[in-house]
């Protein structure tokens, strides 16, 4: 019997959210088919790939290829320029690793100066990720949102504990986009979106960060959460789950043992950098297959591979 394809397009769709401004803007979301099912309906906006740099730049330590890519770039703004120029990069993510009070504890004023330099140095949209310290991020995001007020920046992320202040300052006061972060908990993901919209933040200003894990570290929960969110958004027309999903992959995958154990300790595992690239690439492709609309990666080899994967599937 001949095979007859039955396209499965949904009448509901994922909200389109532009990041950045003018010619440099990138739009994420907007699909109305299951993840990567472009044979059912061509992608409105292909999944976006972001390149992560940190304010400290320490992530390149011990990784010769990555260090070589950023060679000569001594400031976050210089690194951001190189990140934006990376093959396959759609946007840049500046992560304020150094703002963590448990670490370098860089002051908010210093971080703001960095954010300003970075946003002005690049011709791609900017995503600002915090230190993961709940109180510090509130202050940091609010101050950065002000200096980047006309740049349409996405802030990662507001959580259940601090969504009110982050939602009010970033989205309501300065018109930026806000990430709503939950930790692989589908009910909380929806609840946070409800709370943010009740606060007055438009769904068109919210990007979900459903949480992630490196492949092999409980990723099946991540995959199932992402899939169920997409199904609720498309099949059940759940307007509280139709925001696009962004996943910071790099910060998960570059901290697991496969990506940090030196080759000298584990010679049979081979090159450390290759292992890290593989963890990052495998996790990112799994995220895309599960319904993610944007991934954030670190290594040029991974960025190139994932961008090529997306292009090949379009």
């Amino acid at each position: 019997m001949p095979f007859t394809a039955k396209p499965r397009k949904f009448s509901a769709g994922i909200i389109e959210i532009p990041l950045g401004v003018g010619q440099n803007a990138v739009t994420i979301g907007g699909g109305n088919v299951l993840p990567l099912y472009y044979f059912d309906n061509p992608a409105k906006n292909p999944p976006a790939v972001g390149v992560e740099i940190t304010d400290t730049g320490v992530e390149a330590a011990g990784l010769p290829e990555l260090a070589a890519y950023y060679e000569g770039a001594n400031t976050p703004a210089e690194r951001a320029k190189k990140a934006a120029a990376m093959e396959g990069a759609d946007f840049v993510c500046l992560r304020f690793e150094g703002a963590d009070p448990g670490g370098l504890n860089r002051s908010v004023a210093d971080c703001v100066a960095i954010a300003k330099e970075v946003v002005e140095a690049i011709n791609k949209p900017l995503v600002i990720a915090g230190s993961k310290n709940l109180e510090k991020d509130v202050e940091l995001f609010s101050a950065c949102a002000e200096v980047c007020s006309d740049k349409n920046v996405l802030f990662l992320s507001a959580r259940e504990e601090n969504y009110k202040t982050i939602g009010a300052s970033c989205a309501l006061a300065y018109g930026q986009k806000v990430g709503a972060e939950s930790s692989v908990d589908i009910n909380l993901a929806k609840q946070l979106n409800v709370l943010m919209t009740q606060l007055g933040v438009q769904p068109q200003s919210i990007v979900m960060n459903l949480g992630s894990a490196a492949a092999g570290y409980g990723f099946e929960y991540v995959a199932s959460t992402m899939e169920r969110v997409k199904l609720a958004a498309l099949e059940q027309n759940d307007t509280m789950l139709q925001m696009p999903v962004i996943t910071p992959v790099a910060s998960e995958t570059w901290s697991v043992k496969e990506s940090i154990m030196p080759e000298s300790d584990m010679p049979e595992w081979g090159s450390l950098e290759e292992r890290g690239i593989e963890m990052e690439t495998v996790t990112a492709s799994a995220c895309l297959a599960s319904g993610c609309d944007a991934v954030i990666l670190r290594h040029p080899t991974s960025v190139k591979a994932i961008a090529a994967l997306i292009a090949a599937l379009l």
Partner: protein
Amino acid sequence: MARFTIIGERIHCISPSIREAMDTKNPEPILKRAKEQIDAGAAYLDVNIGPAESNGEELMKWVVQLIQENFDNHPLCLDTANRKAIEAGISVYNRSKGKPIINSADAGDRIVNIDLAAANDAICLALCSKSGISKDNDERMMYCQEMLERGMSLGMDPADLWFDPLFLVIKGMQDKLMEVLEFIRMCTDMGLNTTGGLSNISNGMPKHIRPIMDSAMLAMAMMSGLTSAIVNPCDQRLMETIKSCDIIRGDTLYADSYLEV
């Protein structure tokens, strides 16, 4: 898979204020009730203009346009015994937010309303009775089949016929309620959509009892697979029951604020 469809029943010419608004073409009372019901979560609004023998066509057009223009083309359920009025309503109906519903056909004289639905790509409520109340589920199922065959022979999608078992009043026909629920289950097992005027079951009961009884019946009917009902969406207890049952049936994803969305 789909969320329970709530058809708001409060724009009904039996209500004195709506009757008067329809007689004098006064938009305010109708818009007020439309807004209350939409805000409360009604996916469809029933518009009952009564038999409207003299001015039905013009009246239905006026109400349909009035509500759709003011509420972003909210979907409507056109409810009258006057067929020409339904046709007139459909002629001005904007279907960008959903097909019109025709309320209603039965297996007797009103079976021609299925033809009307088929000709206009509308949904049709199909009351499983002919003349008077069906005596048992065999009779209901016979009428159900008749209407299903008629719709399908005219090219209708079976999903566009919403079968109404007729919710019988407890005070007087208490022994029939389980049968009604069983009929809903039979339709569900056939993959058919079901609906009905739920609050009929509590007719004649004290006012404070009715929401309790309606909610209990609705939960049992949803357990039997009921996909829609014509209800008062401003009845908070009933709406909380529907939203909770939607969660339990897996038709909506749970969040702590589920009652508020």
